[in-house]
């Protein structure tokens, strides 16, 4: 039997030890009328050989097109060492380190991760991951409400240039508790938050202001001014950041005079494959004063009976398994495996490697923007400085062009039509260090041809 080790003898002897006549009898407390006899609708089992063939065909079906989408998930080089280690059974098949003494590997990794993320974000403490960037923003909103004792409004300002999916997740998650997310507009020429609009909220009770850096359009916000303005409103600042960008951009802990209060983001760029959207991981860092309001696991360094250094889950009184209905969050299983991947990734890249990844991604995107900008009917949408994504304005609808590109094995970018109809025909593109000049030229040539064909049609 696949994955079941029992021999007929085992079953017989085990039933004898139990004192039951059959396995069937072990289910005798289940009301008979509820019992089913077979799982119709589930196909017959496959051997590993068979499923292997099937999966290989399915993967092949989707090909390996040249990809220029970012929009929250970024194709970076992942050192082979990362997943070679993450796939080790001792990491892959362990669980939450409830038994600290038997989980020092996992616990120490988390402590190292916390250290790296705190430093990367410029904050004092980090948790051990949340589900993803979107849910991390939602948790940050809830945390801000708990942390900001003086604010009663549960009202947050969220610029419309924050990742649209993140905003949706925040509403889904926090809306039921009555949190209100009010939009902040962005400026049509720069794609950046309208600082004046923020200032107009003076005097209102705002629990927190969300700032995404770089924002969804890839543009660099003036985070110092925005942070100070938000703090001036009496609001907390929730920063949403791309972790790669933090190698070259100012960490949220240093934004403005006082720094951001809660920092969240999507950890995927740190060694996690695109993999159709997950598993990724959300990260969260904050000031020490708010640590008891933070959701998620936290690991602390301590000593054992002999005074020897060791690591353990700590501040568990924040968590559901202790505090139940009064916990900071309902999160239990988090994204540990991806945390390990990120910790190894960051160890291998180090400050120099990460900086180069960030720099090269920025440079490649500039090369891309320049190359595509030379194509007739395409121009940059915004004037602002940007990191590794930019919005291009097209002279005709984007969707058919993307389809034409896909046929040439190029994924051209993220069509903004659904989320930002006000932008007209606009495409969000991204290049990372994985793209070569030849790739970019291939894209530019294909785009020119697709647009020519569209014009001709």
């Amino acid at each position, binding site marked *: 039997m696949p994955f079941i080790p029992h021999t007929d003898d085992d079953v017989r002897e085990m039933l004898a030890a139990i004192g039951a006549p059959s396995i069937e009898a072990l289910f005798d407390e289940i009301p008979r009328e509820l019992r089913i006899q077979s799982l119709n609708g*589930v196909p017959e089992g496959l051997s590993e050989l068979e499923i292997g063939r099937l999966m290989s065909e399915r993967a092949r079906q989707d090909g390996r097109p040249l990809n220029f989408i970012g929009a929250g998930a970024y194709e970076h080089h992942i050192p082979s060492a990362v997943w070679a280690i993450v796939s080790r059974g001792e990491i892959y098949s362990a669980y939450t380190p409830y038994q600290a003494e038997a989980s020092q590997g996992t616990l120490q990794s988390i402590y190292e991760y916390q250290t790296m993320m705190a430093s990367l974000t410029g904050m004092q403490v980090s948790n051990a991951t949340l589900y993803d960037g979107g849910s991390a923003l939602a948790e940050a909103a809830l945390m801000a409400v708990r942390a900001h004792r003086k604010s009663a409004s549960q009202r947050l300002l969220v610029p419309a240039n924050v990742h649209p999916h993140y905003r949706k997740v925040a509403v889904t*998650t926090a809306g039921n508790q009555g949190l209100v997310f009010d939009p902040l507009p962005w400026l049509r020429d720069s794609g950046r938050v309208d600082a004046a609009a923020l200032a107009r909220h003076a005097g209102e009770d705002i629990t927190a202001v969300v700032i995404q850096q770089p924002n969804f359009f890839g543009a660099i916000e003036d985070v110092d001014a925005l942070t100070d303005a938000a703090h001036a409103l009496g609001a907390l600042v929730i920063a949403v950041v791309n972790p790669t960008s933090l190698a070259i951009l100012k960490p949220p802990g240093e934004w403005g005079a006082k720094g951001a209060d809660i920092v969240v983001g999507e950890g995927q760029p740190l060694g996690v494959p695109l993999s159709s959207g997950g598993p990724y991981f959300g990260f969260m860092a904050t000031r020490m004063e708010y*640590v008891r309001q933070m959701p998620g696991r936290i690991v602390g360094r301590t000593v054992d009976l002999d005074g020897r250094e060791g690591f353990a889950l700590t501040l568990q009184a924040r968590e559901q398994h202790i505090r139940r209905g009064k916990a900071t969050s*309902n999160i239990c299983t988090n994204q540990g495996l991806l945390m390990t991947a990120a910790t190894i990734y960051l160890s291998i890249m180090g400050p120099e490697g990460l900086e180069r990844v960030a720099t090269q991604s920025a440079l490649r995107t500039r090369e891309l923007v320049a190359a595509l900008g030379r194509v007739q009917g395409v121009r940059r949408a915004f004037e602002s400085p940007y990191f590794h994504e930019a919005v291009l304005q097209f002279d005709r609808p984007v969707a058919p062009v993307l389809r034409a590109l896909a046929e040439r094995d190029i994924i051209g970018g993220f069509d903004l039509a659904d989320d930002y109809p006000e932008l007209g025909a606009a495409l969000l593109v991204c290049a990372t260090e994985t793209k070569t000049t030849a790739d970019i030229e291939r894209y530019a040539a294909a785009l020119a041809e697709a647009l020519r064909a569209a014009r001709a049609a």
Partner: protein
Amino acid sequence: MPQRSEKLIFEYSRPGRGAAGQWPARAEVPADLPATLRRRTRPLLPEVSELEAVRHFTRLSQLNFSIDTHFYPLGSCTMKYNPKACNQYAMLPGFLARHPLGPESRGQGFLACMHELQEMLKAVTGMRGVSLAPMAGAQGEFAGVAMIRAYHRARGDLARNEIIVPEAAHGTNPATATMCGCVVREIPVRADGDVDLDALKAVVGPNTAGIMLTNPSTLGVFERRIKEVAAIVHAAGGLLYYDGANLNAILGKVRPGDMGFDVIHMNLHKTFSTPHGGGGPGSGAVGVGERLLPFLPIPLVGRDGEHYRWLSERDLPQSIGRLSAFMGNAGVLLRAYVYMRMLGREGMSRVGDYATLNANYLLAKLTQAGYDAAYPERRASHEFIITARRQARERQVTAMDIAKRLLDYGFHAPTTYFPLLVPECLLIEPTETESREALDAFVEAMVKIAQETESNPQLLKEAPHSLPVRRLDDVRAARQLDLVWRPGTAA
């Protein structure tokens, strides 16, 4: 032979060192990035060679217990064998490279897997619709309760904001209810492990949004009067939520949909054997009955003839919305898909059979060895509870001491102190993938521990003795918070 301890990665770091083969070429930061918005000091990331990183994390890994190295009977967590095939085939280069926002035309292979997974999960749970979006059990719970609320709201039934949970419920249940803005109403469990129906009747009413139950319950027994529970709650206008963490017990035997549940989450990282990864990722796919179909979280995968496509707000305008930026833990879902296809119809029924056989066998052996079952009159489901109340009273040996001593014998400990209502509780879940000899070896260790409880309780109270560290000072960890490393610090 592995080391007992391993330095921090930062202690290997030296300025100027690094795994340069992994880095792209050095270049200047583009000048258009405003200087005031740039980083001034480098982050505290280690500067180590590739070998140092590999050696460090390899050594660290060896300090863990895991399914691949140890019997891991952690109750409520279903630590069964994670087939290597699931990892290998979910990590085919094509799957790994697929961008979540890539066009459907370049994702038909992936989407086909997801659609079939939705269908299989419907079949095994008896529900009408499934969304794969939730990223763990707790988020599945959240989706479920949010759907219950959306349902009542859509009917204009605005007062229903109470969620009933039995006192044995997992912590995520009440926490979820709170996150959904509900009020938690706890109800007691009877001495036989079943829900107290009178208490339930007393608590239901016009404010009842629903009840969250798992069946078999976290007490390791099947709630026999589930039909009556369903009737009471439904009659009061509430809906029934099934916490699918314990689905392994009944796979192929009975379906939550048939028991009367309106919504369910499934822990794919338990029943469908995706890896636990030292704390995750999981996946908490949700299934719903007819009434909640319109409210399912997006995205879902739909099928038009031979073409698979994403369903969004446009298709489900009443959806509770998005729970993740993309599509939940897609790679976990692929692993669950591979697992389910390998098991197939027959294999899935066997899961429930053998998980239950193993639990009942282990329970029988441990009670024969003198341990006290919390519910001695009941069948075990896929797990069961031993209470160390007597040992604690007579010898001051607690459930925690027994758990720690088990580590010395090379076994991961059961879940301790959950459910809270059973004193000195050890919740033991062997899973179906463990052999009888593995169970017998565990019993043998427990017998030795029983002897040690009599002969040398101090040995237990100071356990573990043979692990990389001895018992850790949790109080100090929480009082003298040391959550990030700073150069020159030791604990």
